């Protein structure tokens, strides 16, 4: 399946099919991670993050594929793994950035932003399934409050709205905590 077809699948919302195709690039990432003091489980984690980043990129307005998907995913994974090793305070070992030139120009800022989104994801997960459900239905699936209230058993639209507000407020507090913790860790290094 070629790159264009995969992009079409994502644009049609057929995410699972697209991801299934994209996993064929995983072994290469596993190889990279194994050569640099990681395990294949680590490789899977960063690869899945890379899939999500790619997904966002495709859904961004004005998206054009500047390199092959494979190059993009690999560049993202390489950078994510480098970050992870830094976090673990481990030497990088041999590191062969094969085609540094192939990396998307805005990769650094892209990954910095994605780091924030990942913390936000963590904050939302920390709140529990119910809040995550409310916010996902609202922000991702764009369900109307009325429908959310019905699906989750709230008294009505108003109750759903209040719930959504409270969840978002809590998530924000948690997100602030996580962000502060991250900044503090970065400064001690």
């Amino acid at each position: 399946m070629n790159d264009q077809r995969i992009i079409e699948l994502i644009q049609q919302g057929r995410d699972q099919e697209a991801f299934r195709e994209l996993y064929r690039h995983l072994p290469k990432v596993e190889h990279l991670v194994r050569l640099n003091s990681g395990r294949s489980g680590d490789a899977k984690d960063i690869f899945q993050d890379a899939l999500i980043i790619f997904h966002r990129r495709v859904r961004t307005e004005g998206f054009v594929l500047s390199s092959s998907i494979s190059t993009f995913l690999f560049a993202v994974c390489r950078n994510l793994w480098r970050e992870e090793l830094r976090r673990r305070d481990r030497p990088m070992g041999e590191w062969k950035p094969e085609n540094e030139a192939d990396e998307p120009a805005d990769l650094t800022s892209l990954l910095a932003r994605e780091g924030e989104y990942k913390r936000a994801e963590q904050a939302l997960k920390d709140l529990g399934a119910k809040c995550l459900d409310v916010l996902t239905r609202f922000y991702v699936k764009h369900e109307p409050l009325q429908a959310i209230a019905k699906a989750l058993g709230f008294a009505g639209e108003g109750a759903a709205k209040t719930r959504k507000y409270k969840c978002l407020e809590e998530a924000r507090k948690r997100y602030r905590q996580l962000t502060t913790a991250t900044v503090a860790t970065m400064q001690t290094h």
Partner: protein
Amino acid sequence: MRDELHLMELVDRYLDGSMSASDRAAFEGRVTASTELQQLIEDQRALREGAHRAALRPAVQLAYRDFRPGGKWKSWSGGAAFVIIAAAGYHYWPRIVQLLPQEHLEQVVPDTIPDEAVPTEQPRTIQYHARRDTVVDTVYRVLRNGKWQVMDHRPTEAELFEDSSRGTEVQEEPSTYTEGALGPIDDRAVEVLPEFPGGMKALHRYLDEHIRHPDLSHPIEGMVNVRFMINERGKVEKATVSKGLNAAYDAEAVRVVMNMPAWTPAKAGGRPVASAMELPLRFRNPGTEEAPPGPSQH
């Protein structure tokens, strides 16, 4: 609370881009004046994106399960001239064959020896270390001067770099196996590993049904490593014993491997390619668990 709720809704509309031009201008005026509001917008943007990430997780996981149905194949592969998958130790226990879970296999990259320390004429060194919950089987292979050697212990640094012509504890590979015997191997990175039809469980079942202790009156314990090719059509070829027990056991191991149904071939560059694999089969004495390996029977 009403004010804050209202403010959040405004931020949502701002981020959605659904404000009218005049509302937007007014709102942006407020934003410029307030760092607190700027922070709120950034946080809310991150949280909305975080919700998108969380919502994608199920699709990511399900697709992974589609990709690796057994969830057990862990692989290493790459530009190396050939790929060896040390799959498992089989316990022969009157006809019970057990497969070592793949996740317990790891490639041990020598960490004490930096690459630069290896003189260029020295052979490359690759070790594989297979283990169960507690270490049951440990297999080390050292590629030296183009030949694989099996060692019964983790090689010391001295052994790794020792001239292979000198006598060491290293056990030489049987001469039946040479790298050439495996035929041409595509040296592009293998992207998709070969797969037994039905996955690891099916492989387990197949071996369980077909492997026989060749000599039940004098059963012996030990490993037989069988190395074989899976050609680009998935057919098993050129099975050779890389580490054997005795003629009867070696022949049985090769027989079972050669009779396997066709695999789904490995893929590189989107095309099926030939690949090499190795399966260590362990025969265990079917009567006495504690018994040491018996002497070879001929």
